[in-house]
């Protein structure tokens, strides 16, 4: 039973970067913007947070820096895709390639630096309770924050007027514009929010989960987060479930080795990517569901004068 609790704790920890990145991308896509730059924004967030944490010795300042850095690079995407109406697919790809290069460049001097990361909670008394203590009171603070973010995003999108406006902009920017909402400004904010969340996801990896900086350390998690939004058919609670499912798959490679399963490690490392492909195919098979749930204007530029 204790082992089971441990497994849950590890799964939540492994799924958390996906929760952050996918929730951010969800809000961006709800406004009708497809930002494929998640991987790049995560890497820039990771390197910024690690550098600041290493310099100031404060991992929390690092997290703040990661959020800001993620938002800052998402601004490049926003200006190109929203103000200059560039192709969103190409611009997102550019952001990912740019983020890989920029983070490798900035992170060179931090490659073998050791920092004091953000540790899991240890509430005196509570965390030591059998099973319940581990399950409820011994996670990393950023894991709790990700759950709070999930609740906040869900509440925002479905319980507030502003959330309704964001969804309206994503469904029909022309109508939203005709009623008088500033479509481009709203999309700017949605992109910035997505960038900040991706930055936070990277920061979690660099200053809490590992904590260290390695070139390309996100290892495709940004792309998995993008796929998650499709699996989740743009619904927040499904994003959460999917993120933990994939967190669990990432763990499987370590679990299998612990169980003494004779299999080359490379095949186990392929698992998360193969699983993403399989689930994506299964969910997408029903084209109608995807079409009905995807924001109707997803990926289409909006020009008020057109």
């Amino acid at each position: 039973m204790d082992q089971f609790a441990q497994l849950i704790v590890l799964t939540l920890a492994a799924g958390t970067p996906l929760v952050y990145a996918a929730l951010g991308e969800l809000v961006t896509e709800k406004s009708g913007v497809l930002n494929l730059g998640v991987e790049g924004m995560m890497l820039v967030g990771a390197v910024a947070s690690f550098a600041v944490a290493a310099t100031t010795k404060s991992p929390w300042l690092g997290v703040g820096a990661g959020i800001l850095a993620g938002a800052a690079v998402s601004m490049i995407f926003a200006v190109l895709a929203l103000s200059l109406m560039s192709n969103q697919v190409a611009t997102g790809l550019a952001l990912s390639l740019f983020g890989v290069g920029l983070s490798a460049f900035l992170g060179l001097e931090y490659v073998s630096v050791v920092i004091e990361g953000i540790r899991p909670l240890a509430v005196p008394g509570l965390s030591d309770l059998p099973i319940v203590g581990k399950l409820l009171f011994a996670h990393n603070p950023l894991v709790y924050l990700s759950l709070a973010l999930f609740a906040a995003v869900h509440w925002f999108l479905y319980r507030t007027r502003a959330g309704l406006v964001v969804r309206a902009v994503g469904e029909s920017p022309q109508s939203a514009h005709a009623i008088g909402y500033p479509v481009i400004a709203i999309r700017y904010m949605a992109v910035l929010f997505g960038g900040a969340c991706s930055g936070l996801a990277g920061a979690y990896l660099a200053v809490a989960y590992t904590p260290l900086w390695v070139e390309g350390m996100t290892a495709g998690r940004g792309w998995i987060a993008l796929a998650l939004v499709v699996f989740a058919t743009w619904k927040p609670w499904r994003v959460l479930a999917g993120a933990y499912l994939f967190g669990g798959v990432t763990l499987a490679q370590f679990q299998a080795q612990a169980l003494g399963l004779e299999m080359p490690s490379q095949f186990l490392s392929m698992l998360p990517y193969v699983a993403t492909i399989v689930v994506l195919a299964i969910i997408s098979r029903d084209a109608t569901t995807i079409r009905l749930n995807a924001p109707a204007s997803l990926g289409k530029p909006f020009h008020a004068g057109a």
Partner: protein
Amino acid sequence: MSAAGPPQGANRSPTGGSAAANAASVGGSIRLRLEARPEPSRLAGWLSPLAAALATLVVGFVLFSWLGKNPFTAFHAFFVKPVADAYGVSELLLKASPLILIATGLAAGYRANVWNIGAEGQLLVGAVAGGGLALAFPETTSPLLLPAMIVAGALGGMAWAAIPAFLRTRFNANEILVSLMLVYVATHLLSWLVHGPWRDPEGFNFPQSRLFHEAALLPPLFEGLRVNAGLFVALAVVAAGYLFMQKSLAGFQMRVAGLAPAAANYAGISSNRNVWMGLLIGGGCAGVAGVQEAAGPVGQLLPTLSPGYGFAAIIVAFVGRLHPVGVVFAALLMSLLYLGGESAQLNLALPSAVTGLFQGTLLFFLLAADVLIHYRLRVVRPARTPVPVPKGA
């Protein structure tokens, strides 16, 4: 790039929306506005890559100064020194050749809105297929071995690209995500092969295959230089790519599908066939590029076989305007960025990661400059502005 900025639409009364919604203010009362052109501008289309390359140079200038290097020395080390002699030119062509190959293949797909971004994985699987043949026949001296390796590489890359094509046409799965995921799978596959079954028994346990033997290596074109016969393969593919996209019916159908999906559908052009064609062409070209790397400058199978050619080729395809001839020039530029990065590392102690930074910047500037293909900038004076602009906007 002065048109870049937060949209002024945010500051205006919401009901005043007009063509100016995407405009950005410049210097107080005179405003710049983007106006849709009735026809896309061909001139802007060809000028925008040049503008992007120039803007990237300016960024490089600023970056070098910021890093405390004399920008002129740095420029010389980055863009002139690497190609100042015959060896440098040979290296330029050597690195441009895989980029030309892959980008020509990708461009065919992108023209039809088929977004294959997994060329890096297709390259690796192509190298595995072609290289596997070299490793399987270590005694062969037959001149047929190399052509067979190239064919095997093309088939390997096509097989890898067939997975996203099948999942897209049969299960509607997004080819961007599937092809990208397969890059990671291919990386682990190659890693397993060179760590395990294909590891060189005399390689001191390094994760690498045996060195290919003479008959499995692409012959160099000149004594002492590394540029090899692969360059001709790349140029032949450019010619074939041009004929296919511009002169064949299938190429025409792919272009129509990309420009006007609804019209293509109405005309009975099969979108599934375009997906298959786009991905198979891209995968096949990337696979051949993989064999060229393995049987050329590398000479064996290694986990670090490709310095990201599959991703850089995406940028090459866009900068080359998805046109085979443009791709050749863009590939030469990108190849120079690779060489410049290496040279900067040697001569200026600058990190070679600068290359990746420049590659991304180049694509950003291209996308920004491309706005002028479909829109023109109009200077709007306040008196003629249809909407009153609040102070401070």
